[in-house]
């Protein structure tokens, strides 16, 4: 049964929900409702229908409430309480004033916060730029997702090469494969046009499809006519300028290695920096077929193969088909299951190099590592903010209490403090951008990139805003939750009894300083880890320098051998030796730091089936090689022209080869290389030739048999009396250059010192070390800045305690111990935490090296001590000030 009174009461209650509708208004509306009800009832409706119709006619309570709210509000921005608050709360101006006032009154703390955040964000920004750069290689190719590189996976290691017939066969026989291209890197050659002769390092031989698979646009000439003949060449714009200046290069001729003329038929746009493939010129594949410099059979893995796959492909299926094709065409390496083909997407190539000799230099681990460091640094800066603002919370309890009494809800206080931390990060942001800009040249040098902040790009703005938000929220979450939990009663009375925190575990945490201790300890931990990393990378580098070529590396100059020198070598050598500053001259058939070939075609006296040596590094040298380099012959003798038979077949093995072959009394025994037996005449001491990342390699040396042929791509080694660091060097170089120019025509004189070449192998590692060092320094710096603020705050809080202690007879030293004991404990804990963590990560890195330093407790302690010293120096300074304060002064207040 419909009850009018109840219905009206219910209806009034629904109006009362909206506080803008005053009681008087409700009475007025009720009277209206009843008038209308009476009228409708007179017209013959039932009570219920009449009531429903009447209340409908009045309208929705919320609409009425909103209309009244609009009449009574003071600010156009105000929203009724029952509506969702706007993005900018109504009190935003008040919040802003209060925050700025707080910053101004505590300019010291604000400076620490802003500067710390700015440095932290600048670091993160730089690292993010780097990470983003590293992970955006090869994205400029239009079909990037469809392009794959063929790689091989095998027991003996993975490679990125495949045989020449593979690409065209695959394109013809596998329907999913749209196009393929073969690429071969041409080794360093001389290129000449008229007077201009240069060494060119980055040329390739490729199929015409290079230009249709990849997005390397031509600016002049065309692809088809270039690839129609073997003796055409396409240049990069850069290379074209180098040889032809502003002239039109099309139709002009370049001379390769002094003998092969090539006609310029095209100029391509310079390849963007972020490309794993870099080349300055392209010669058609026909060139390889005509000149036959490299094997073109199924067994010769001399080419890189890239393929473009169709849209409906299945990668696994495609890989299976690739191997099937190789099998049907009897590729020997696939037949005897030495290796299998696989694929790598273009976008994955840069960060995932295959084997130590791959072209791209990216490193996925490093990208992860540095992202982590960026996060760490941002966190350290944010922790400073958290510590300082929670520590100072009590100073703001009255404000919060007032706000709550007046009617602020907890979420409003939370948003106020989030807003404050965001405000401070956004104040720091321009400073961070400025700092990043200032640090840019140094950063570019450290990373080998060419970033610039001057060009404000979307990426930078996006990254910077992102970092600011991240840091702001991270820094704001604890202060916001903690401060908003304060209860007004206690806050206004000015006392914060411990019990008020009983409700919230987190608040209790903050109150007791646990949070602060955790944050400070984690800052120390991160600092110690980074310091340890710096120390370990640094000493590992030192070890490498000592271990590899413990010879007189800086005395040995190396010059690449070209065809033009090969037949004049003796003449060149004799001329050089006339100079008293040159001790000896030798030749080798390969680069100074590598062996010519790695072969399994060998045997020796007493070879058994289960022998460990499967591959040996082999190089031809001349009789002066070991003496020039100062490599010690530990038994037997050096090669000598006194033994004419040496030239035919005689071998010198290194200790490692003897070891692995299991040879006893090796000198005089027979060794056979490529089926050619000869006596082992001597054993040379192990020398680390290649990267220390590799196992110590067994090596065999034999003499040049046909110097002119065998020495191409080899090296002349010149031992000088004085190192390159010493003064009298330059006349020697001038002398060598003169001799060179007198006998050689058309080949530029280029030299390097052995130590430079060895260092070059570790360029990446050294860079890593420097970066670690820089970031470690910065994290320590930011942490210490936070400490200054924190310690001085704690000292300020404990002024009276210190005063009383002093009155009771405590010395300055006692007070210092009191104030710093906590710091010492935290650093000790941090060291305990950081040690194992750093050990875990660094051991992985070190495992890549054959000779490696050991990370012992000593090193960890050392890093901990460094941080402790830094902490005590910065925090201690504040503590001394507090400890020396006159107790009459500190006890005087209140």
């Amino acid at each position, binding site marked *: 049964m419909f009850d009018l009174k109840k219905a009206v009461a219910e209806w009034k209650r629904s109006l009362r929900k909206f506080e803008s509708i005053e009681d*008087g*208004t409700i*009475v*007025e*509306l009720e*009277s*209206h409702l*009843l*008038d*209308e009800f009476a009228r409708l009832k007179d017209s013959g409706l039932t009570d219920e229908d009449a009531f429903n119709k009447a209340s409908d*006619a*009045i*309208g*929705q309570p919320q*609409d*009425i409430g909103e*209309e*009244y709210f*609009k*009449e009574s509000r003071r600010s156009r921005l105000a929203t009724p309480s029952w509506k969702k608050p706007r993005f900018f709360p109504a009190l935003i101006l008040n919040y802003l004033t209060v925050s700025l006032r707080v910053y101004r009154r505590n300019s010291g703390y604000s400076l620490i916060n802003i500067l710390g955040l700015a440095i932290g964000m600048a670091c993160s920004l730089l690292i993010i730029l780097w990470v983003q750069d590293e992970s955006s290689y090869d994205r400029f190719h239009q079909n990037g997702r469809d392009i794959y590189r063929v790689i091989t996976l095998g027991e003996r290691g993975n490679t990125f090469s495949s045989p020449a017939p593979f690409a065209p066969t695959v394109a013809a026989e596998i329907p999913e494969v749209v196009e393929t291209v073969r690429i071969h890197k041409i080794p360093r050659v001389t290129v000449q046009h008229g007077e201009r002769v240069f060494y060119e390092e980055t040329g390739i031989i490729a199929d015409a499809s290079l230009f249709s698979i990849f997005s390397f646009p031509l600016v002049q000439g065309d692809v088809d006519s270039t690839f129609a003949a073997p003796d055409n060449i396409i240049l990069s714009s850069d290379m074209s300028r180098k040889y032809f200046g502003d002239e039109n290069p099309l139709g002009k001729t370049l001379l390769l290695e002094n003998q092969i003329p090539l006609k310029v038929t095209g100029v391509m746009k310079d390849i963007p920096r972020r490309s794993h493939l870099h080349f300055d010129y392209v010669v058609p594949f026909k060139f390889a077929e005509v000149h036959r410099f490299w094997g073109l059979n199924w067994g010769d893995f001399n080419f890189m193969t890239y393929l473009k796959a169709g849209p409906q492909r299945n990668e696994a299926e495609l890989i299976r088909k690739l191997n099937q094709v190789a099998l049907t065409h009897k590729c020997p390496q696939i037949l005897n299951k030495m290796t299998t083909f696989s694929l790598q997407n273009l976008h994955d190539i840069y960060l995932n190099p295959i084997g130590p000799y791959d072209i791209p230099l990216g490193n996925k681990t490093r990208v992860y590592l540095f992202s982590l460091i960026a996060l760490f640094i941002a966190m350290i800066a944010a922790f400073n903010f958290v510590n300082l603002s929670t520590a100072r919370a009590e100073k703001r309890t009255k404000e919060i209490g007032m706000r709550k009494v007046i009617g602020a809800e907890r979420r409003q206080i939370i948003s106020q403090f989030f807003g404050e931390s965001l405000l401070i990060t956004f104040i720091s942001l321009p400073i961070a951008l400025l700092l990043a800009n200032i640090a840019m040249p140094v950063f570019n040098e450290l990373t080998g990139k060419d970033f610039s902040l001057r060009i404000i790009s979307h990426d930078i703005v996006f990254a910077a805003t992102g970092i600011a938000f991240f840091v702001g929220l991270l820094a704001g979450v604890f202060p916001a939750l903690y401060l908003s939990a304060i209860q007004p009663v206690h806050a206004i009375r000015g006392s914060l009894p411990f019990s008020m925190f009983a409700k919230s575990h987190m608040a209790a945490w903050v109150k007791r300083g646990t949070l602060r201790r955790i944050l400070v300890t984690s800052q120390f931990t991160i600092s110690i880890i980074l310091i340890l990393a710096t120390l370990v990378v640094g000493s590992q580098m030192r070890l490498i320098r000592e271990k590899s070529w413990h010879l007189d590396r800086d005395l040995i100059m190396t010059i690449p051998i070209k065809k033009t020198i090969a037949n004049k070598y003796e003449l060149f050598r004799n001329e050089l030796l006339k100079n008293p500053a040159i001790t000896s001259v030798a030749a080798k058939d390969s680069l100074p730091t590598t062996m010519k070939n790695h072969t399994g075609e060998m045997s020796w006296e007493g070879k058994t089936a289960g022998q460990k040596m499967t591959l040996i590094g082999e190089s031809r040298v001349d009789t002066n090689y070991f003496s020039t380099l100062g490599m010690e012959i530990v038994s037997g003798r050096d090669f000598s022209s006194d033994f004419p038979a040496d030239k035919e077949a005689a071998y010198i093995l290194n200790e490692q080869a003897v070891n692995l072959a299991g040879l006893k009394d090796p000198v005089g025994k027979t060794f056979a290389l490529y089926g050619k037996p000869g006596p082992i005449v001597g054993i040379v001491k192990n020398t680390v030739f290649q990267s220390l990342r590799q196992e110590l390699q067994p090596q065999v040396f034999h003499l040049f048999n046909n110097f002119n042929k065998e020495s191409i791509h080899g090296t002349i080694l010149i031992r000088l009396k004085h190192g390159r660091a010493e003064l009298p060097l330059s006349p020697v170089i001038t002398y060598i250059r003169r001799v060179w120019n007198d006998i050689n025509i058309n080949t530029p004189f280029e030299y390097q010192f052995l130590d430079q070449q060895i260092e070059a192998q570790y360029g990446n590692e050294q860079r890593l070390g420097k970066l670690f060092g820089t970031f470690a320094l910065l994290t320590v710096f930011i942490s210490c800045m936070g400490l200054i603020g924190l310690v001085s705050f704690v000292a300020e809080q404990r002024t009276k305690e210190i005063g009383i202690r002093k009155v009771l007879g405590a010395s300055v030293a006692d007070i210092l111990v009191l104030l710093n004991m906590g710091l010492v404990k935290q650093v000790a804990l941090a060291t305990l935490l950081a040690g194992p963590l750093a050990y875990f990560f660094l051991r992985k890195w070190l495992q890549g090296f054959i000779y490696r330093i050991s990370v012992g407790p000593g090193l960890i302690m050392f890093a901990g001590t460094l941080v402790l010293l830094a902490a005590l120096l910065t925090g201690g300074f504040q503590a001394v000030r507090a400890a020396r304060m006159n107790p009459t002064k500190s006890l005087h207040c209140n």
Partner: protein
Amino acid sequence: MEYAYIEGQGNLTLKVKKMIPKGLMAASTRPIILSILKGGEDYGYQIIQRVKDMSGGTLEWSDGMLYPVLQRLEKENLITSRWVVSEEGRPRKYYKITASGREALTEQIAQWRNMIKALNLILRPSPEME
């Protein structure tokens, strides 16, 4: 009949037949109320009944929306109000136009006249008027 909810410029949401444009509806609210009150003191319910009568049903308000406008007019001193207990024993708020309310009304009516004059010039040849 088709209805549309629209938000009026005079802070009044009206339930109008679609053919009456919302700006026009909103602008006319205040002079309509004032002119009803010029005829004598009255309370909310009656004011609404009169609006309905006057417009012959073409203006139909959501009743509750009248009251905020009355409050506003009162705040602007164009009308005054007093509580009276009715014969049925229900309290009723009676509204009365003030001197400045009359002035405002005269002014608004003059404005409307000008407007109508201008509109007539434009609207005369409209076939819908025939």
